[in-house]
């Protein structure tokens, strides 16, 4: 069966998939939707009191993304996290007046019990990995808001914060735990489920909270966790608060945090309206972004259009444009496209990044953002673009940038070329179109750092400070293929004679390799240089977790995840690997 829905439904975009469905029966996998809005939330509430927002988790047990599990005890699945991600995003854009956000539970007796175990037990490996990636990105976006948006997060932990629940609490700059002699924080994944607290849990305990490693070892193997003063002494939380003064103290801490913000109190927020998206055949169309899926060749082509309207004359005009202001509109579209492809198109293993538009105008937009970078909204937009680019960095797809005549790889959009695993640039003109140009702008020198804390250029030219200076010397100068190759900014250059063949062969070769080894190689090569908490979470913790997620001790028929809740204990293969 092919389902058709004019707006959101998915028309099976290729014949291969169609045939597969015919062969395996009518398995209509529903599309997972990342777009949402508060009116559609089933699991979260946002309550705003002046400069303080309360982000309240009250998960609807019956609101799981797919059947087969109940989201008891404020446990979450991808659907719950999609709402959280949306809420964090909206608080930044729609509520300039909010200077502090309190993460809390709307359920009695539990803060959050973490990722739903039965959901993990029944999910495919790919779904688990993708789910964890997205939750990790959302956790980091909370920390990004505290660090860069003047929106400081606090966790008010009342009831148990277990596993992913404590990992959520850990994202806040300040963790309060009620001292009711019951409420505790814990990371019981290892003793209970034979997996890791993989959504940053281990890494944040050591790197962010700087819990001593032996205490962290004890904490992460104690199913019941730690409560009260010991939780403070071990630095797992910042303070414990007696129940009688709980509400007053939480309110006080939130006011104090809000008072530290540099966000304006009198500004109007920017509404983030429902993102327009049309899925038709193999194409997905957004404002400024188009995706073409080719299941036969197992690849997706992502085309980003640069700005077309002139740069606003002043910041007020840009604010008035709101979600239609090109940098914001483009970032929202690209963000959704990435999430959609990652989750719903797992077999499209190769992404081709293309751009089109006016490079000079692109640079003018960059200059505008930079000139107004202290304006709350322009700041938000730059950080948002930064996060979208980071999503590309951690995407398990081979990414190739194609820099062709008519393209717009300049400034912000040039980051797409630097984010790619390799790039190819067209030499000379093509059918009357002007030659392809690559233009480095100021935005490439610090606006969009990667997870390793370096710019993509610094990462590319690790240990080559002189090269970076050479690149800087050609700031805002359109570089043709020869110049770009000379500076090391592109991988290959081909002229008209070779372009089509070379590109075809490169892409076909890439598509023939093992997807697993490609994922491993790319993730390694993309992050040379220093480690940060963020790279450790994605590169080390996640890699281990994903290994464990494949092992029979966790997911075999007698493994801990499969047996969880049955009352039967897991049977382990005791051999250390």
């Amino acid at each position, binding site marked *: 069966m092919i389902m058709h829905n004019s707006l959101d439904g998915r028309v099976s975009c290729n014949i291969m998939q169609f045939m597969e469905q015919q062969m395996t029966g009518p398995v209509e996998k529903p599309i997972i939707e990342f777009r949402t809005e508060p009116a559609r939330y089933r699991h979260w509430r946002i309550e705003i009191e002046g400069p303080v927002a309360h982000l309240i988790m009250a998960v609807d047990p019956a609101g799981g993304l797919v059947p087969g599990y109940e989201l*008891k005890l404020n446990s979450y699945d991808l659907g719950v996290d999609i709402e959280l991600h949306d809420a964090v995003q909206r608080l930044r854009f729609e509520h300039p007046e909010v200077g502090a956000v309190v993460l809390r539970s709307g359920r009695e007796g539990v803060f959050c019990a973490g990722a739903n175990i039965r959901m993990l037990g029944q999910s495919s490996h790919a779904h688990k990995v993708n789910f964890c990636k997205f939750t990790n990105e959302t956790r980091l976006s909370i920390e990004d808001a505290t660090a860069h948006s003047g929106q400081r997060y606090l966790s008010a932990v009342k009831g148990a914060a277990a596993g992913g629940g404590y990992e959520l609490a850990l994202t806040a700059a300040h963790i309060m735990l009620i*001292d*009711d*002699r*019951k409420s505790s924080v814990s990371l019981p994944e290892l*003793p209970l489920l034979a997996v890791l607290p993989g959504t940053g849990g281990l890494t944040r305990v050591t790197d962010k909270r700087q819990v001593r490693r032996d205490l962290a070892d004890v904490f992460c193997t*104690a*199913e*019941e966790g730690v409560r009260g003063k010991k939780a403070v002494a071990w630095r797992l939380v910042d303070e414990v608060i*007696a*129940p*009688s003064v709980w509400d007053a103290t939480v309110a006080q801490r939130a006011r104090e945090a809000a008072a530290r913000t540099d966000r304006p109190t009198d500004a109007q927020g920017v509404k983030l309206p429902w993102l327009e998206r049309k899925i038709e055949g193999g194409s997905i169309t957004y404002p400024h972004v188009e995706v073409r899926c080719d299941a036969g060749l197992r690849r997706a082509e992502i085309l980003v259009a640069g700005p077309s309207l002139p740069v606003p004359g002043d910041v007020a005009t840009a604010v008035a444009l709101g979600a239609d202001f090109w940098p914001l509109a483009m970032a929202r579209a690209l963000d959704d496209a990435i999430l959609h492809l990652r989750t719903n198109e797992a077999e499209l293993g190769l992404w081709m990044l293309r751009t089109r538009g006016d490079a000079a105008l692109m640079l003018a937009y960059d200059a505008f953002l930079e000139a107004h970078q202290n304006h709350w909204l322009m700041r938000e937009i730059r950080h948002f673009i930064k996060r979208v680019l980071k999503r590309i960095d951690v995407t398990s797809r081979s990414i190739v940038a194609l820099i062709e005549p008519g393209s717009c790889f300049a400034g912000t959009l040039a980051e797409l070329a630097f984010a790619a695993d390799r790039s190819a640039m067209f030499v000379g003109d093509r059918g009357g179109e002007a030659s392809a140009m690559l233009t480095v702008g100021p935005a490439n020198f610090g606006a969009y750092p990667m997870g390793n804390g370096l710019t993509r250029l610094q990462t590319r030219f690790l240990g080559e400070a002189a090269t970076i200076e050479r690149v800087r010397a050609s700031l805002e100068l359109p570089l043709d293929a020869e110049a770009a190759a000379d500076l090391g900014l592109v991988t290959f250059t081909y002229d008209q004679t070779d372009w089509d063949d070379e590109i075809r062969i490169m892409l076909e070769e890439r598509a023939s390799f093992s997807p697993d080894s490609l994922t491993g190689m790319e993730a390694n090569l993309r992050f040379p240089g220093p480690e940060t908490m963020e790279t450790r979470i994605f590169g080390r913790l996640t890699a281990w977790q994903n290994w464990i997620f494949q092992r029979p001790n966790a997911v075999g028929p007698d493994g801990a995840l499969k047996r*969880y*809740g*049955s*009352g*039967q*204990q897991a049977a382990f293969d005791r051999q250390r690997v």
Partner: protein
Amino acid sequence: MPDGMNIDYDGLIPNNVGLAEDQRVRKALETWHPGYIDWWKDMGPEGFQESLVYLRTAIGVDPKGWAKFDYVKMPEYKWGILLAPAVEGRTIPFGKHKGELAWQEVPGEYRALLRRLIVVQGDTEPASVEQQRHLGATAPSLYDLRNLFQVNVEEGRHLWAMVYLLHKYFGTDGREEAEELLQRRSGHADTPRMLGAFNEATPDWLSFFMFTYFTDRDGKMQLEALAQSGFDPLSRTCRFMLTEEAHHMFVGDSGVQRVVERTVQAMRDAGINDPYDQAAERKLGVIDLPTIQKKMNLHFSLTLDLFGNEISTNAANAFNAGIKGRYREDKIEDDHDLIGATYPVLRCVDGEIVREEAPALSALNMRLRDDYVKDCESGVVRWNRVIEKAGFSFRLALPHVAFNRAIGEFATIKAGPDGVVMDAAAWAARAGDWLPDAADAAYIDSLMVPVREAGQYASWIAPPRVGIDNKGGDFEYVQIVQ
């Protein structure tokens, strides 16, 4: 060495566990002891610490002669560590270790699970003493006052029993937990007891009887399940506690029965035929039958919440591990491992109550609750016999298990005592018909005046048919020293 049957009263702490030879645990318990006495004086029965109470004290743990009765000042009561005698060669009766020798030490892998179970059980014991500490002021007779205190000191002893296990088998964590058992306070905003029902006040004597009938019966069910444990010291402790718990339920059972007896007697004497004529009944200074029903509704439903979620991973784990069995596991004829078995569970699906088969391991809480509800029926039958014999058509009845629930499947719906699901507004409109309201509380409160003359009983309760230790109802069970 004690033979396990007689109790060593030589040391500070009476025991049949060889405490004299176990320096480490004796020292821990002796360190804990002053804190316990302070707690008892602070939070135990208010105003009667100097009075002489005719209490029974255990002198042996064999079923025949384990108790002796005498006047005792409560703070001087011989609290101690008493375990049922060891059964030679006892094996683990259920779960994946079924048939292995019962554990005499805690297996490392179950340490946290066991400790949690013991702490939760332990927490309920002092909690009920705290809940009942004001009741002495309004006791309807010296007989009832003595029964209250007997219940209280035995709950205190049950705390000792759990603390012994914590001290003996759980190292520093156990000592910390034992200390915290003395720090928490029923109903306290900052340091509440662990379970909801144990933070509710016991405001009057009818509540006390209902509590000892319904809530102590939950205690009995939990103890029965733990008495099956593969961890032998826990099993032996619980087996002995059960003999004491039976008396608590007797106090509740007979207490409610005496209230009912008094009410129907007064109605007959006054020629009242309509049991629903509350105003007329209340003029007689007795508790009308509809109010007794409402109290029952309240205490039964609050107690059901103590059984936790119908489908529970913790319960499944505890069973499979051989830690906590089913009610009378030793009398059940099946494979005792429940792998692959199912059990019917009441669930709430789209707002409707339906019965579904669930994996039996996960449904152990539901099963224990079913056993509990069955166990509750016996008293209700007895109480109704009193009403029937008096010639009234009124019948007391347990409400539906979905009524007034805050935990489990039915927490999200509103159902009447008959199990009919309704919307919240309709339920709220009828709540006063089903649960005691402020007016009921005020009326019952007005009856709660102390009666302190031997052989005298308050207007709302009949004397017992027989007293304690073959004494009459007019025996001076408490010599009050203010």
